[in-house]
C-alpha cells in the first residue's frame, strides 16, 4: 500500500503545478508525524499505518491561495474536514490532489487496540478523492462501538467532572492550534477589542475558553480527536464535542460536518424547529 502511496505522490510531484505533497513519515521513538514532500527523491519517507493520527487538512488553509496544487492524504474523518474546509471557502477543490486512505481505525499509542477516538466512527472511508490506496470498506463494528459519554452523570457529577478536568487545563491553546476548523486570522479568544477572555487561570475563564471552542465547532467537529491527543494535560475534550454532536443529530437530524453537503446547523433553521421557549417557565 505504501508503494502505491509513493507512486501516486511521485506522479503528483511530476505535475508542473504541484506545490507540495502532505503525508505522514516516521518520527522519533516510533511515532508518526506530518511530512511535507516537495522533491520526488523524498517520497520514500512517506508511510501509512495505524499511527497516522494527524489531520493533515489543518495545514491547508496556511498555504497561500494560489494556482498551485497541494497533494494530501486523507482518512475518512479528514475527508469530512476537507469537505467542510471547501464549504467554508478555505480550500478550493481544484487546488488539492486528494489521496484517500482506506482507514480501518487507528491504534491507541503504544498499545495494540483501536484508539477510543475511532469508536463510533460513522465514516472511516475517505471520499471525493482523486486516487485511493485501495478499495474503501467500512470495518466491522467501529460505528457501533460504545464510547464513554456524559449521559449517565448527574448534573452534580458533571460539574465535578469538568471542574477536575479544567483544573488540569493549563491554557496552552494546543487544542485550538491543532484543530482543522480553527483558521481565523485572529481568534476571538485572542482579541483585545473587546477582551472577551483574560489570561487569568480561573474556572470562569477556562469554562469560557472551552465553551467558545465547543460552540464554534458545533456542526463543524468531525470527531477526529486531535484536540484531545494534543492536550498535554489530558483534558477529555472529546466528551464535550461528542455530546454536542449527539444533540445536533437528535434535534436537527444533523449527522456531522462534511457527511452531507448540508449547511452547518447553527447557520440554518426550519420554521418548525423544536421550540422550548414558547411557554411560561417549565
Amino acid at each position: 500500500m505504501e508503494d502505491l502511496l509513493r507512486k501516486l505522490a511521485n506522479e503528483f510531484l511530476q505535475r508542473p503545478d504541484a506545490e507540495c505533497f502532505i503525508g505522514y513519515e516516521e518520527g522519533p521513538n516510533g511515532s508518526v508525524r506530518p511530512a511535507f514532500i516537495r522533491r520526488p527523491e523524498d517520497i520514500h519517507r512517506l508511510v501509512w499505518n495505524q499511527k497516522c493520527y494527524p489531520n493533515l487538512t489543518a495545514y491547508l488553509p496556511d498555504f497561500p491561495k494560489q494556482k498551485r496544487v497541494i497533494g494530501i492524504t486523507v482518512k475518512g474523518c479528514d475527508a469530512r474536514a476537507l469537505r467542510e474546509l471547501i464549504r467554508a471557502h478555505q480550500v478550493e477543490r481544484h487546488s488539492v490532489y486528494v489521496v484517500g486512505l482506506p482507514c480501518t481505525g487507528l491504534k491507541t499509542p503504544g498499545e495494540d487496540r483501536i484508539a477510543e477516538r475511532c469508536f463510533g466512527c460513522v465514516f472511516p472511508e475517505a471520499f471525493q478523492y482523486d486516487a485511493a490506496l485501495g478499495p474503501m470498506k467500512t470495518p466491522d463494528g467501529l460505528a457501533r462501538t460504545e464510547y464513554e459519554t456524559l449521559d449517565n452523570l448527574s448534573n452534580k457529577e458533571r460539574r465535578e467532572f469538568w471542574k477536575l478536568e479544567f483544573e488540569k487545563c493549563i491554557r496552552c491553546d494546543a487544542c485550538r492550534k491543532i484543530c482543522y476548523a480553527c483558521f481565523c486570522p485572529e481568534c476571538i479568544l485572542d482579541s483585545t477589542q473587546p477582551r472577551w477572555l483574560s489570561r487569568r487561570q480561573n474556572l470562569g475563564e477556562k469554562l469560557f475558553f472551552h465553551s467558545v471552542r465547543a460552540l464554534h465547532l458545533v456542526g463543524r467537529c468531525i470527531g477526529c480527536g486531535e484536540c484531545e491527543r494534543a492536550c498535554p494535560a489530558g483534558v477529555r475534550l472529546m466528551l464535550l464535542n461528542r455530546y454536542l454532536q449527539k444533540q445536533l443529530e437528535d434535534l436537527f437530524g444533523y449527522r456531522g460536518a462534511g457527511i452531507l453537503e448540508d449547511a452547518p446547523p447553527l447557520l440554518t433553521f426550519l420554521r418548525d424547529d423544536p421550540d422550548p421557549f414558547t411557554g411560561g417557565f417549565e
Partner: protein
Amino acid sequence: MGKVRIGVFICHCGSNIGGFINIHNVLEYTRGLPLVKHTEDNLYTCSDGGLSSIKEKITEHNLNRVIVAACTPRTHEALFRRACEEVGLNRYLFEFVNIREHCSWIHMNEPEAATEKAMELIRLGVMKAAHLVPLEAASTQVKPATLIIGGGASGLSAAVNLANQGFDVHIVEQTGKLGGLASRLWKLMPGDRLAHEFVEPLVNTVKKSKHIKIYLNSIVKEISGFIGEFNIEVKTPQGKKDFSVGTVIVATGARELTPIGLYHHGELQGVLTQLELEQMLKRGRKRFRNIVFINCAGARTPDREYCGRLCCATSIKNARYLREISPSSSVTVLQRDVMAFGTEFELEYRRAQDAGVRFIRYEPDRPPEVIGEKKVSSVRVYHTLSGEEIMLPASMVVLTTPLIPNEGAAELSRMLKVPIDRYNFFLEAHLKLRPVEFATDGVYIAGAARFPVDIREAVAQGIAAAAKAAAPMTAGEVILEATIARTEPLLCSGCGNCEMVCPFAAVEVRKDDKIQNKSFVNAVLCKGCGACTAVCPNGAIQQLGFTDHQIFSMIETMAFEDGSDVF
C-alpha cells in the same frame, strides 16, 4: 477624535422619574464615573430648555459623547440626536438610557432599588458611549427609470402610472402582444364590460407614451445591481439589449391550469376549461344545451392546496351569461364553497341564481364523475343536501381551474434574489403590510405572479407597485441605514457564515482579483439586524452602533460592578 469626554443629562420627566428615583444621588454617582466630564439634571430634557442646554454644554465642555437618561429611545432618540447634530456632534455619538419605562415606572414602590438600578443603567450607558464612533448614513442615487417584467393588466397599469409621473419605463413581454390574460377573455367582472373595451385603451395609451419602451417576444436574461441602478440584459428578436433602471416591477402574471386528464379533459369531447369557454363565447357561439360547471378542478386539493380566489366569480359570471345568451339551456355549477366575497361578487351570485343557474354543492371526497363515450353525456354527482347521487345530463362540461404562475418565475426569482413559494408564486416582503414589495429594496411585485387576482386587483396592485417604485425615484436617492454591518478584511477568514445567515443577501464572500476571499457588505442591501455579527467566529464583521466591543463593555461593567476592569 481625541479623548472621550462624556456628558450625561438626567431627566426628571416632571415627577415621572424624579418622583421615584433620587436624582441627586444618581447625579453624584454619575459624576464619579470614568470619562464623564459633565452631568446635569433637567425637569424635562426633551423641552426646548433641555435641548438648548445639551447644545450649550457640548460646546462649553467640549463633549464628544452625549447620554440622556430619560424615557424610551423608541420615541425620543431622533429628537436628541438632532440636537447633537445641530452643534456639530455626530448623531451616532449619542446614547440613550431608559430610566422611565424600564425603571421608575416599573419600580414605583422601591425608590431605593430603582435609584440603584438607574445608576447602573447609566453606568452601562457610559461604557457603551465610550466605545461609540461617528457614523455616516450613506446615500445612493436612483435612476428615474423602471423595468416592468410582463405586459399584462398590472404591468401596463404600472407603466401608465409611472409614465404619467414622468419616469421612463421599459416593458419586457414574453409574448408578441400586450394585454396578458385579460386580452384572451370575453367579458370582465365586475361591470359586464367586454374585455377588449378595457384592454385596448390601456394598450393604446402604453403604445402612445413617449416614456415607455416595449420589448415584445423578449425575455430578461440577466439582472445585476441593486436599488438605484439595476443593469438589465434583455434578449429580443433583434438581439441583445442592455440598459439600466432604478427600480424593477415583477408582473409576470399567471395562466389557467390546463387540467389534462382531469375529469377527462382532453379525452372526452365537450370537456373544456373556463378560458376555452370564454374563447368560444368570444367567437360568437350562441346556442348551448346542458352545461355543467365543475369548480375547484385542480384546486383546494392536497397537492395544490390554495383556492384560486377568482375562479368562483368566473364560473358565476359565465354561468349567468350562458343562461342569458341561450335561455333554453340548463346551467348547473358544481361547487364546494362559493367564494363570492365582497359586494359585487355576492350580487353576481344572486343574479346568477335569479337567472336560473343551479348551484349544487359537492364534497371533495365524493367528487363528480364525468361520463361519456368520445363525447361527454352526463355528470354523476353526490348531492350533499339530498344525500343521494344524481345524474345531470351534460352536453358540455366546463372545468373551473385555478391560475398557476407563468413559467420563468423560478428563473426570475434566482436573478432578482427574491423568494417564491412552493407553487412558484412570488413571496412578498410581508403578507399583510407589504403586499407589493419584496424584502429587497427597489424590487416590487404586482398581479397574479404573487397570487391569483381579478382584473381590478391586478390594476390596483400595478398602480400600488408603481407608487412604491416612484418614491425613491422621485427623491432621486435613498438614504441608507447607518448602523449596518462592516467587515474588517484583516480579520476575515472568508468562511461565509455571515453570507449564510443574512436575510437580505447583503453579505457575500468575494473572490476576485483584488479581494481574496473576504466578506463584503453591500451597504444598500444591509438592514442592520446584526445576524451576521453574531455568527462571525472572530468578530471580523461588526454591526456598527451595536459592536461586540460596545455590548461587551456593558456586560463587563455589569459583572464587575465598579467598571474598574474596563478602564
